[in-house]
């Protein structure tokens, strides 16, 4: 059966605000899964809590809607239990970098074969507009009426220095480009981080589609090779009048699952009906 965007219909309609960047990410993800032939029964999407996390209701795949910030640990547990199962994490900037910051760093360090898509809009939309960890200095929100005073977190540099083996940035207003990045990210064997710049049309009147479009440019294959960590970091801190999108860093390394000797003979889940054998162990205690 051919997998298309329609394969994921649930009969539920999105509740996101009209014009929300989440639509572009959702559309891109459906198209990417179609291109990868990952159908509703074939993979697991683990969602966090935030506007992004409501996506499952109109996205028919196996879904785990976890606790705020805790999507990555759930995804890693599922992946270790069944490492042949495609596992994708749909998260947000508050979910992944605020409440779940520690999990993000350690997931990157372990390099599980999981793709995380960060809906990065600088605000907490679901709680009606407070500053997120990526909110830029000076940005006025309900929790920062005088403007954000802290430095913003940079998901890309954090991912790179933490050990992620695929780090990219896309734009919710460019579904075609974003689909391509998602396909690459999911195909990558290892921990792939895709930060998606996304306007919040309700709580952010500054970072609009137009604001992004006038600044974004693509890292082109001709003059940028995503193989140098230091160069990737230099690119990742570019912000202001010119903001790069594309693949910043990519390397091949053994995954978390590759390093588990117990998985060499197949997924743990294939052993789920059998008791353990203690015969060889008991003598140790005698």
């Amino acid at each position, binding site marked *: 059966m051919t997998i298309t965007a329609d394969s994921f219909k*649930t009969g*539920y309609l999105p509740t996101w605000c009209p014009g929300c960047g989440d639509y572009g990410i959702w559309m891109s993800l459906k198209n990417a899964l179609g291109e990868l032939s990952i159908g*509703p*029964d*074939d*993979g*697991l999407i*683990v969602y966090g*809590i935030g506007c992004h996390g*409501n996506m*499952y*209701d109109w996205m*028919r*795949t*196996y*879904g*785990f*809607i*976890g*606790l705020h910030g*805790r999507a*990555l*640990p*759930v*995804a*890693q*547990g*599922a*992946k*270790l*239990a*069944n490492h*042949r*199962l495609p596992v994708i994490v749909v998260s947000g900037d508050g979910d992944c970098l605020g409440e779940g910051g*520690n*999990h993000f*760093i*350690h997931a990157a360090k372990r390099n599980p074969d999981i793709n995380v898509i960060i809906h990065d809009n600088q605000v907490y939309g679901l709680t009606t507009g407070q500053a997120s960890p990526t909110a830029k200095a000076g940005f006025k929100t309900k929790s920062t009426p005088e403007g954000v005073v802290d430095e913003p977190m940079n998901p890309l540099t954090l991912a790179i220095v933490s050990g992620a083996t695929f780090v990219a940035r896309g734009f919710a207003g460019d579904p075609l480009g974003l689909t391509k990045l998602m396909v690459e990210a999911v195909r990558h064997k290892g921990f792939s981080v895709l930060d998606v710049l996304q306007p919040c049309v309700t709580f952010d009147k500054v970072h609009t589609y137009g604001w992004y479009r006038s600044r974004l440019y693509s890292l082109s294959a001709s003059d940028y090779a995503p193989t140098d960590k230091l160069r990737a970091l230099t690119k990742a801190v570019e912000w202001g009048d010119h903001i790069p999108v594309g693949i910043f860093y990519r390397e091949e390394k053994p995954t978390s699952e590759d390093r*588990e*000797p*117990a*998985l060499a*003979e197949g997924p*743990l*889940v294939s*052993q*789920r*009906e*059998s*008791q*353990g*054998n*203690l015969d*060889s*162990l*008991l003598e140790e*205690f*005698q």
Partner: protein
Amino acid sequence: MSSGTILARAFSRAGYCVFATNEYPSLIRGGHNIVTVRIATREIHALEGVVDILMALNQETVDLHKQELHDGSIVVFDPKDYDWQASDFSNKPVLVPVPLRGLVEQGAGEPVMRNTIALGVTVGLLGVDFILVESVIHDQFTKKGDEVVRRNLAFARSGYDFVKTNLPALQGCHIAPTTKKEDVLVLSGSEAVGLGAVRAGMRFAAIYPMTPINSLITFLADHAKELRIVYKQPEDEIAGINMAIGASIAGVRSMVATSGGGFALMVEGLSLAGMVEAPLVIDLGMRVGPATGMPTWTEQGELQFVIHAGHGEFPRVVLAPADAAEAYTLTIEAFQLADKYQVPVFLLTDKYINESQWCVPKTHFQGDVLLDRGKIAQTEALASDVSFSRYSLGNDDGISPRSFPGQKHGQYFANSYEHNEVGHVSEEPMNRKAMVQKRLKKLSAMSRDILPPSVYGDPEAGVTCVTWGSTRGPVLEALERVGFAVGGTRVNVVHFSWIYPFPAAQAAALLSKSTRIIDVEQNATGQLSSLIREHTGILIQEKLLKYDGRPFFPEEILDKVQSVK
């Protein structure tokens, strides 16, 4: 506790019943460290308050333990540490100076080798053949190479020979002969939990290091490859429980283990397991709280915590093993119950159980376990019309068949939000009510599996000691000493291994027969007695509570039972 383990295993191999426990401060090295080994020709359940042989590797050890000696106890010490004289003791121990440091120097060993020499001295004093300890030393150190085996044997031998040559009169004065009846293992409670988990088909464990469950980590990590299990060290306990839930949802039996502080971090995840109905086993090794407390000491302070932990209302099971043998069987039971009811199941252990070493017949660990994974959706029975209802409401026991991600036509959402039968979010009032009832129905369904409290002694006895978890050992030890009777009145023990859902009817029936009930707990508030009051109305007036971090001694139990009410 290597020397203690070797001593215990040596005597266990010879047919003795052994029990060993350790006490140490929360330091990496140094401080006062002791291991106490009790060796008996009959079945024993605890330590005694008195010491027969005190093996002192420094002066402080004698200072701290001389009150535990009786007339005739042997004190082995190195005169280079302090030259103890009879006048230093209020009782009359036999003083046995042994040049431990001198023997180390003779063998060109490191100071730590005094442990091994002391082991040889102890075996010599107990009058058993050296071959007993020789075989254990060989088996314990063989992985480290022949040279390590040879040196350890040489030092143990030098201690043994010192006794043979210099102290012939003391040999064999403390232990009666016995014969070996069967193969017996000597293992810690943590290791027994590990064996139980592996036997039960556990495939995934995410455990952040914390005293007192660290030897469970060692056991699982050491054997991960051969047993085809994954032990993952998470970044914190929050990640640990969420990883285990992820593995559980993906289809494998999974567990976490921690102590009270780590469990406090897991509470949010516990509630998640309750909501998505994920089978999960949580081994909570209690230690002294609150906060960081006294990390290496024992307590039973978390009974009410685990029963009430987690936001919202959802079912759970709480089991409390009393020793290593029960830790094994209840761990298996915990995995079976978790799958059957799709709920979190607690193993409420403590430092004393986890780190003490118990002797258990090998056959106890050898029976096959028929895994019952509970209600699982069969792929061939699933319709292709996207209609699978993971959280189906059509079951009287509240348990609905589950599918695993990747299974054809089994798609659903495991949702931390309140959800409908498929897993879509729903805040509709009728659905909410039905889902709460679905989950809570499991509590009444569980009643058919409840293990009733165990009774030791005459069920009709007038005096009853109430225990749970590790307090059973010292209480049984005490009452066996007096034949389960005090001053002509029979005394029994009503012991709870199954804590929650509370076996109210069985508890009420058993306790209503007694005219005097004594609640024995290792905490300051009598948490089990509160539970009994809550569920049966029975108010227990007399409590023997200990919360100084040290386990009960049988003598303390007898003092209480024999005291006039």
